[in-house]
């Protein structure tokens, strides 16, 4: 009795085990792993900026026959996992990619916390970790600790400095006055940016006339926008997240918050932002930006639309794609799957990408777009740290 029941249970268990263990060693393929949220709180961002770029890159590389190794072209076999925005799952998935799937390379996860949580595992197994959606002011300390981690998106100080510079310039031109209303979402990125911005704005001679945070997931931002408007600002800066970037803009429009400089952070660069606000988006400043008129960028946008069926965002999408181009060039430069050699190659060389050349200095890419602006239906980079082609800033003229 028990025996037969036991056997019934045992057979599927063994079958599952066998599938888990099986690692069909196909020749001429290179296994690349990816883990990021497809569901959960961060899925809204990762399905816009992270997954489509990966899909596009794999598609393009394989269409050309694969990565060019010395032994011949190797097609990419992509292994992807959904971490459901749970760091425990991310850690487990990266472990699985490294030790069970035995992938050759792993694409960095999505989000600052998730990249940091998995950094020890990337380091332990010697995988290069080219982070794209990790923003921190601890870059020197982290790169010292983890020799294979690379940062591409920039740091909070640079982002806020650029905003301050743009506002200063507009003030010097006489477009705006001295009064800045600043709000931030009380979560990761929003907090860091707001804290970095306060001293920078003050030392640039701005008066912060309204400075409040609001919790993530607030259903009504009216008090925030009304409060900001009541403070009679010349510029409005929101260190915001996707849902509240939309919410704040809609309310600013309704409240007719007429400032010459209107800035919202994450998701301003999303195509959905332009789709929703259309002409009202004109002149809105936001985090990120690109130079959408370079031939590389135009090709990227076109291919992105064709392969994934949607438009890329004008900030992190090309950065994620560029990080994959960097990885591709490093692998092809080395000519084999030797991870240590690829990491060394990454540190020493410069790479041509869709966002321009990338060169890591102490594992950190120091040339990135910091502020963009919607102009004539495109999100142009208007400020950067060492990227050419910034457009001049326009004053926002009403909604």
């Amino acid at each position, binding site marked *: *009795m*028990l025996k037969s*029941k036991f056997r019934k249970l045992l057979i599927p268990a063994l079958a*599952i085990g066998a*599938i*888990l263990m099986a690692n069909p060693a196909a020749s001429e393929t290179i296994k690349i792993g990816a883990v990021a949220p*497809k*569901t959960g*709180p961060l899925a809204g961002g990762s399905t816009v900026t992270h997954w489509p770029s990966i899909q596009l890159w794999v598609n393009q590389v394989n269409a050309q026959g694969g990565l060019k190794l010395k032994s011949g072209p190797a097609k990419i076999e992509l292994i*992807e*996992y*959904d971490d*459901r925005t*749970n*760091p*425990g*799952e991310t*850690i*487990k*998935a990266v*472990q*699985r990619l*490294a*030790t*069970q799937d035995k992938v050759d390379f792993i694409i960095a996860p999505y989000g*600052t*916390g998730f990249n*940091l*949580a998995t*950094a*020890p595992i990337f380091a332990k197994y010697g995988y290069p970790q080219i982070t794209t959606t990790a923003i*921190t*002011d*601890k870059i020197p*300390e982290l790169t010292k*600790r983890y020799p294979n981690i690379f940062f591409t998106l920039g740091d909070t100080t640079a982002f806020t400095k650029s905003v301050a510079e743009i506002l200063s310039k507009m003030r010097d031109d006489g477009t705006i006055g001295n009064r800045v209303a600043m709000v*931030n979402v*009380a*979560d*990761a*990125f*929003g*907090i*860091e940016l*707001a*804290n970095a911005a306060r001293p920078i704005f003050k030392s640039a001679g701005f008066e912060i006339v309204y400075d409040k*945070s609001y*919790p*993530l997931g607030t259903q009504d931002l009216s008090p925030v926008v009304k409060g900001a408007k009541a403070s009679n600002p010349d510029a409005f800066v929101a260190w915001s997240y996707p849902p509240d970037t939309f919410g704040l803009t809609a309310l600013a429009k309704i409240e007719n918050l007429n400032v010459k400089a209107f800035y919202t952070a994450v998701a301003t660069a999303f195509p959905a932002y332009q789709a929703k606000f259309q002409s009202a988006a004109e002149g809105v400043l936001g985090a990120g930006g690109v130079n959408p008129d370079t031939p590389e960028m135009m090709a990227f946008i076109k291919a992105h639309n064709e392969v994934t069926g949607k438009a890329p965002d004008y900030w992190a999408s090309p950065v994620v794609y560029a990080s994959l181009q960097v990885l591709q060039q490093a692998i092809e430069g080395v000519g084999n799957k030797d991870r240590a050699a690829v990491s060394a190659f990454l540190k020493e060389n410069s790479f041509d990408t869709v966002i321009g050349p990338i060169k890591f200095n102490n594992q950190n890419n120091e040339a990135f777009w910091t502020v963009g602006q919607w102009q004539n239906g495109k999100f142009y980079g208007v400020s950067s740290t060492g990227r050419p082609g910034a457009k001049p800033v326009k004053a926002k003229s009403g909604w």
Partner: protein
Amino acid sequence: MTKREKRSIIPVFLIFASAALIPLVDTGYWLSISISVVMYTVLATSWTLFSGPTHYISLATAAFFGIGMYTVAGGLELLPFPFLVFLAGIIGAILAAVIGLATLRLSGVYFVIFTLGLAEFIRQIFTWVQTTMGTSSGLYVLTDITESIIFWELLALAMLVFGLGWWIGRSRLGFALRIIGNDEIVAAHCGINTARAKIVLFIVSGSIASVTGALLSPRWTYVEPGIAFSPMISFQVVIMALLGGTHRLWGPLLGVIPFTLLWDVISTFFPNQTTLLLGISFLLIVYLIPNGIVGLVEKIYSNWISGNREQFN
């Protein structure tokens, strides 16, 4: 100690001993999974210590867990790690005592939602404090503690929890709790101090959850309120414990192990439908295994015993 208990000591000891060898065999994926298993075993078992006999469903696990994480993350530069873990236990116990005293009058679903609201309240306060006073959204926990060490720490904690559970089960306290669970009014009439018994157990369970959070803090490296106080932790613990079965000490373990493995198989093979399939497997389990896995095991066991008897007769 009864004869049966004596007989089970050796296998239990063997199970723990062989579990302790896992990091020596594999420090990769299987260790990661084992950490998940032990972490949820500790959380679910300690949850059951309180909720099993009293039938009070607490959704405050995330609050204790998060506070434990933050104790370590916040104090790492000032105090040694072991002391912080101890401190986390104390803070968790104090918090549990306060909640316990405050919620004496609540019962049933009011207690459930109260604990949920409380956990969210604590999360909001931490977020606000960190926003207004801190410099970054999260705290960095950069240590040299490896996954193997975390696993052994958790395993030791699990042993402690099981030992505690066994001891409570045979003590006056456990007896009192079982009566409370059956009928609180009867218990009060028997002269049992129902309030004290409940609070003591809630303190035990809260304190253990805090220590678990403290131990896991180095593994997550970067602690943010949204991650440390994620309500999913509370829900997952409740669900695993309930599916395992809460009227046996080892019930939650039987929920945790198959679930962690099943969920892992699903997320391995269906990365694009993970959430959907998790939901479906969940429903199937609820409908097909109504009394939890303990119920299923006990049914098979009793069938087997009676089957054997029939053969002998």
